[in-house]
């Protein structure tokens, strides 16, 4: 029983730390927006936004897990994220664009790696050949 309580407390403190981190980020963003639009944010509103963000993150996490399980996967995929974001059109567009970018980047990376590998192999082979020859 005491262990459970200790666990709970640990979890709770962990949550609090996360909340604090989220709050910090949200405050930074709000600061940017405020300076952009020229209208300051009250502290309560910032706190409200950060709390809402935190709770939404929890929901998102649960949903993502559900989606992944629905597709019989054990890893959360970009597809799951897109499914999550489909409600908001602009967000969905943004995410799809980003995912395409990332995909491209990945393919490029792979291509580079392949080239490197090939070059490495070639040099190795050349070295071997040279060695064998000599």
């Amino acid at each position, binding site marked *: 029983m005491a262990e459970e309580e200790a666990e709970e407390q640990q979890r709770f403190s962990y949550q609090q730390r996360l909340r604090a981190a989220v709050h910090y980020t949200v405050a930074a963003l709000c600061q940017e927006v405020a300076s952009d639009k020229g209208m300051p944010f009250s502290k309560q509103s910032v706190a409200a936004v950060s709390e809402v963000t935190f709770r939404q993150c929890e929901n998102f996490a649960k949903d993502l897990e559900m989606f992944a399980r629905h597709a019989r996967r054990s890893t959360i995929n970009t597809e799951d994220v897109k*499914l999550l974001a489909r409600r908001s059109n602009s967000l969905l567009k943004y995410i799809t664009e980003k995912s395409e970018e990332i995909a491209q980047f990945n393919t490029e990376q792979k291509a580079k790696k392949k080239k490197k590998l090939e070059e490495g192999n070639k040099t190795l082979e050349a070295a071997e050949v040279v060695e064998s020859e000599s």
Partner: protein
Amino acid sequence: MADGYSPNSEPTTRTLLRRVLDTADSRSPRRPRSIRAGTQRTLLETPSPRRRSSQRKSTARRHSHGTRSVSRLAHTQASRHLDEQTPRTLLKNILLTAPESSVLVPKSVVKPAPAPPVVQPPRRESSRGSLELQLPELEPTTSLAPGLLAHGRRKQRLRLSVFQQEVDQGLPLSQEPPETAGASSLTSSLNLTFATPVQPQSVKRPGLARRPPTRRAVDVGVLLQDLRDTSLAPSGNSLRTPVATVPTDTVLEDTQPFSQPLVGRSPSVHHSLPHPSHNETEDTEKAVDHWTQSSQPGLQNDKPHPWPAAPPEVTESMGSQGAVEAEESDVSSGDEDPSGRAASPAMASRTPSFLQAEQPPPFLEPTPRPGAAVVSSEPVLARRPPRPRAAGPRPRQDPHKTGLNHYAKLFSFYAKMPMEKAALEVVEKCLDKYFQHLCNDLEVFAAHAGRKTVRPEDLELLMRRQGLVTDQVSLHVLVERHLPLEYRQLLIPCAFSGNSVFPAQ
């Protein structure tokens, strides 16, 4: 013994019957009669609290009391009587014999032992004519009732006379068979009970009439019309998009309620109703069958709950679930009578019509004919060709409304307040969007799992997102809470005999 079963008190038919029924519980007619007869005889001889020590205390007690009254009768009769001593036979005996002896000469009742078989038949015949119950065993009856009535005849007579008067006056009487055992009164009461007509259960609330008949005809005609229209329109494509594309533009941001893609969707929704599409929907049928069947009763059950809370958007409330189920079932139950079964395959056809881009609506046209040849569809079919297509938007809008008309009416019914028509229209609009949204989600979920069919898992996921199914409350719990038994067994796998599990997983 002081449990009210004092042997000295006049054992009325009621008490005797009670005793008999109590004893009958512990007995089964299967038991060897000899034992019973033997025990009964011993009880007859020594009715005393000693019997309590026997296995069944109460029954023994009652036996003793009962036997006291019985003891006046012939032993043979008792044994004979007891041989058939099931509650039914005993009750029959009481019913038969009690009336005869009471009203008639009481003295003859006192000597039931020697002459019951002789005396009874004539009396019985007199009453038998009026009796509608053709009971098989009338011979052994005798015994109990006369003996009883000998004691309680005074009371009974009074009751009987009054009763009989009432009967003669033709007052409707509920059957009080053994207690008010009157000779002819009883039989006549029996007659009465048999004769009283069952009052037809009228629909007290016309508002609850679920299917306004006019709607059907309009539906089919209009929907068939739209069927043609949609076959030409490029609609529906927006619905079949994969996740990446943005079909929700029109749904979410379009303020006009009946723009093209919406139109394309809902008519196909509704037109597929009375037209069971037999092509390539068999697996979807099976998949969706459970769903629709579960949703149909879910409609009836959940309506009161979710309705007041039915918001237009996907919210985390029972309303959404009920509304979902209500919508699916309503859409499918719209033409329930002619196409009761067609509803579920029609539901199935709906999803593939969304998901499968190549499923051409014209396919549905020939198939509707056999399906729609039921009842009211025929005159509508005749009407269909001459209707001009130029009346485009009008008939297109109708199916939206007619499908949700039912819901709007229910809404107004449960609102307990009069509603403006404009409000009802808004409600319909919101419901329309809500259901489209919901079905979109379902389609997307199915596609997410790499399927083209919407399966119950997709629905469970949807309900999870709605917050109806949580870690604490599983889908099965909700099914058990809200669905009637017949639908529950369709959803929750149940093991039946022969090692078969239904529904097959």
